């Protein structure tokens, strides 16, 4: 018998992911505390009205259940979390339960006093949405004049109080070429950043935000940018943002683990070792997979997590068995997401145009000759058959009449 202690982010994270995926432990949970927000971002997929948020007591009960179930990584988000008057009470409970706590915020309401409170409550990291380093661009997306200035003012305050900060920049039509400025801003601040090409439909399935999505052809300058290294084959298909940029010099020792070999042949972590909880207590496999598996006002978390048919179905999916994508020759360039496959293609197991078109462009830029996804090969074949069939019929008719 020897009591051992190992350290080092990657090996420990790899083992942790392997164990939690194998046994379906809910290692990471994204908990939106509110959908209310003090910004009105044009691409947002949320309904900002309060339809009956979990009370403080209900939130604390959820945290107790998550801790019992083995959740370690807990991300509080929204909406804007600082609009919850009980935020610190919830964070204090999370601290008592020893979660690793991250926040997502627009940081408009961050003050030195609030940053100090976050630090006291052992919040490790705050991810902040920044759409551009140009105020007019950022503020036009948030629809709040002066919002970039306020957001940027909050970052040094958080850093001074010992919190890690990460910039998140979803790219859309309004800010596509602003990513270079955000990268430079992150470098200047000495913080990591993430660029995200994913603009999703509203959670009710309506497509409003998609009007702001950049077409695949317009993304070519981004995909070609060597600074982003975006066209390398991905080690696995994940429900991760299309571009992840985390310079090693700024990287945090706790990695996301999203590229772990443990996810090989799984679409992503959703439902395997991670899930999403809405402000109303609905449990989803992921924020991008809006199929509620249950509600925490009516059921225990463990009952939902281990027994909901929606989660069991999701866990049975293997990339190698997907009806179309498993045959795709450019799969290694694809970042297919089962949630987006459901929302955009109507089938969680299916291929969808956006992912296929992006994979083709990435493969082309990486030097693959005439790359074509399995979906497009199938569609072309069907189209050819539709076109040729009348001609064959005509030929048959003509030859019969001869």
């Amino acid at each position, binding site marked *: *018998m*020897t*009591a*051992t*202690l*190992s*350290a*080092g*982010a990657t090996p*420990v*994270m790899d*083992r*942790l992911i392997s*164990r*939690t995926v194998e*046994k379906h*432990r809910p*290692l990471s949970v994204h908990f939106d505390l509110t959908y209310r927000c003090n910004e009105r971002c044009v691409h947002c997929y949320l309904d900002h009205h309060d339809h009956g948020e979990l009370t403080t007591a209900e939130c604390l009960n959820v945290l107790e259940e998550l*801790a019992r179930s*083995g*959740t*370690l990584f807990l991300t509080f988000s929204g909406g804007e979390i600082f609009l919850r008057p009980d935020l610190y009470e919830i964070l204090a409970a999370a601290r008592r339960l*020893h*979660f*690793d*706590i991250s926040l997502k915020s627009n940081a408009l309401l961050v003050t030195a006093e609030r940053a100090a409170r976050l630090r006291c409550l*052992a*919040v*490790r990291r705050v991810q902040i949405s920044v759409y551009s380093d140009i105020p007019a661009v950022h503020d036009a997306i948030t629809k709040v004049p002066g919002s970039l200035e306020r957001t940027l003012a909050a970052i040094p305050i958080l850093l001074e109080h*010992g919190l*890690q900060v990460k910039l998140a920049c979803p790219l859309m039509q309004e800010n596509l070429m602003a990513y270079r400025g955000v990268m430079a801003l992150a470098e200047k601040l000495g913080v990591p950043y993430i660029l995200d090409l994913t603009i999703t439909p509203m959670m009710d399935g309506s497509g409003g935000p998609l009007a702001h999505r950049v077409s695949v052809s317009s993304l070519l300058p981004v995909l070609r940018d060597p600074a982003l290294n975006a066209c390398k084959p991905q080690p696995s298909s994940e429900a991760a943002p299309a571009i992840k940029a985390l310079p090693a010099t700024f990287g*945090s*020792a*706790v990695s996301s683990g999203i590229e772990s070999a443990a996810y090989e042949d799984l679409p992503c972590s959703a439902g395997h070792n991670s899930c999403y909880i809405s402000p109303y207590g609905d449990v989803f496999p992921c924020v991008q997979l809006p199929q509620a598996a249950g509600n925490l006002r009516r059921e225990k978390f463990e009952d939902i997590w281990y027994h909901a048919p929606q989660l069991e179905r999701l866990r049975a999916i293997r990339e190698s068995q997907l009806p179309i994508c498993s045959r795709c020759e450019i799969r290694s360039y694809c970042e297919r997401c089962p949630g987006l496959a459901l929302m955009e293609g109507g089938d969680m197991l299916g291929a969808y145009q956006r992912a296929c078109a992006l994979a083709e462009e990435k493969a082309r830029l990486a030097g693959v000759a005439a790359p074509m996804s399995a979906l497009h090969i199938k569609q072309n074949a069907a189209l050819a058959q539709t076109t040729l069939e009348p001609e064959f019929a005509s030929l048959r008719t003509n030859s019969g009449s001869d």
Partner: protein
Amino acid sequence: MSTSAAVFWQKNPALAWREIDDETVIISPNDSVMHELNDTGSFLWKNIDGKKSAAELAELLVENYEVTPDMALSDTQALLEEMSSRKLVVTVPATGGVSP
């Protein structure tokens, strides 16, 4: 760092940690480094509560695992020293308060 019988051991209160299937993962928020304890390490971690000395923790090991008292004490002291060097645990004098 002292490991005398009069010193009790306590978890660093700033840490995030979780026991998952008999193994414990600990994260220090300052440097974001992850640490992992095996099952016996996890057993000791669970019992580090600011009210037990190394010898008392070793006794618990003897009661729960097939191990000699000498080996239990040696293992416990080695683990506590390693965890102390990584700032995962701190000592508490019998009179109360946390040792620097």
